[in-house]
């Protein structure tokens, strides 16, 4: 079995983003998806700090600290992009205008609950940012994460034990070993890395899984 690395996962998510989509990529791993979007597609990246039509990172000499993404990294603006204030930006997100957002997660439940902002540890200082807005606002919420924690626990769970970000909001989960659809109908495996089997996934996750492989 060949686990996907981060680049392969990002490329896999990018494949599912269609021409014309308005997309918000969360901080961290999801940001990498931008590097794998097909050049020939017009895909519109929104950043919640007030820009639409985000382009790739600038050359070092062109860095402008008033042109950054939500992760506070320097970016560029494509021709046809625009700037707006936080009110309009979150209206965009909350109002259902973003087609897809891609988020990292601590846990996702088989019915699509998302936990990605707080470990619940008593001494943690919680920080939520725009995660809850994206979770409820985007038409589709994709999650990108390793299936297992470093301690070997499944992050795809029957029920989240960490504090929730949003209820029943995730539709698809991209992991290093499989892609799952989640939601009211439970979790379905739509893709597996070569060598992986559904029984192995059942063992790893301990959750109820159906097979619904998509044509490759």
């Amino acid at each position, binding site marked *: 079995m060949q686990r996907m690395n981060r680049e392969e996962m990002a490329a896999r998510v990018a494949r599912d983003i269609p*021409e*014309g989509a*308005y997309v918000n990529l969360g901080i961290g791993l999801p940001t990498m998806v931008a590097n794998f979007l097909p050049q020939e597609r*017009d895909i*519109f990246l*929104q950043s919640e700090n007030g*820009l*639409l*039509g985000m382009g790739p990172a600038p050359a070092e000499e062109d860095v402008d600290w008033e042109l950054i993404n939500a992760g506070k990294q320097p970016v560029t*603006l494509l*021709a*046809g*992009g*625009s*700037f*707006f204030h936080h009110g*309009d930006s*979150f*209206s*965009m997100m*909350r*109002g*259902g*205008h*973003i087609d897809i957002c891609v988020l990292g997660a601590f846990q996702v439940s088989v019915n699509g609950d998302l936990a990605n902002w707080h470990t619940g540890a008593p001494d943690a200082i919680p920080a939520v940012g725009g995660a809850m807005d994206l979770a*409820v*606002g985007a038409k589709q919420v994709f999650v990108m994460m390793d299936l297992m924690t470093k301690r070997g626990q499944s992050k795809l769970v029957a029920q989240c034990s960490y504090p929730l970000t949003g209820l029943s909001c995730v539709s698809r989960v991209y992991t290093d070993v499989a892609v799952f659809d989640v939601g009211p109908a439970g979790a379905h495996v739509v893709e597996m890395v070569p060598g992986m089997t559904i029984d192995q996934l059942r063992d790893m996750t301990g959750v109820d899984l159906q097979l619904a492989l998509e044509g490759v």
Partner: protein
Amino acid sequence: MIDKISPSLRQAVADLHDGASIMISGFGDAGAPHELMEAVIAHGASDLTIISNNAGAGESGIAALIKANRVRKVICSFPRQAASHHFDARYRAGEVELELVPQGNLAARIQAAGSGLGAIFTPTGYGTLLAQGKETREIDGRNYVLEYPIHADFALIKARAGDRWGNLVYRKVARNFGPIMAMAAKTTIAQVAEVVELGALDPETVVTPGIFVNRVVQVAPLSVAAAA
């Protein structure tokens, strides 16, 4: 390549359907998308709900839609005008329903729809006929009325210029309801006096980002002057 420019007014409104709710920008003639409304009349859709500040005046625009018997209901703030005879007649005959909304509540409810809010407590209209039967609440010593979002299937708006991604800029007070209606409708169609190249609009001054616009169609400029 995404190109939201429609080749014609006819194609821009081709998917209208009977029973559709349609937001229409404009305050008086300023910002009223007359050419798009003519295309709606030519299209033939009927049983429409019109959401706009006015209910039409004279013989064109919303007045022409009402005259052509396409309108079931009007949601607006100011239906009665000097030349609103087509609305007046149909309304008095019971053929057109009216939901009268204070202008700021109209704007706020359209904004609530565009921004995904479920409802808002607004002070406007409290204690008046227009709040009768509505939930009210005192918050911090002030009285408010609970008002719900106004969504629409389509928004027909007028802008000065647009590009193929749907970015729009407006002209003077013709801006009025355009930007907020664009955010609240499932499908937003903008008529513009000028289609410009991608990148020609300064990103600092785009008023309506393309995400809120589905189609852009060019009409001959100066239509307002002609209509006035």
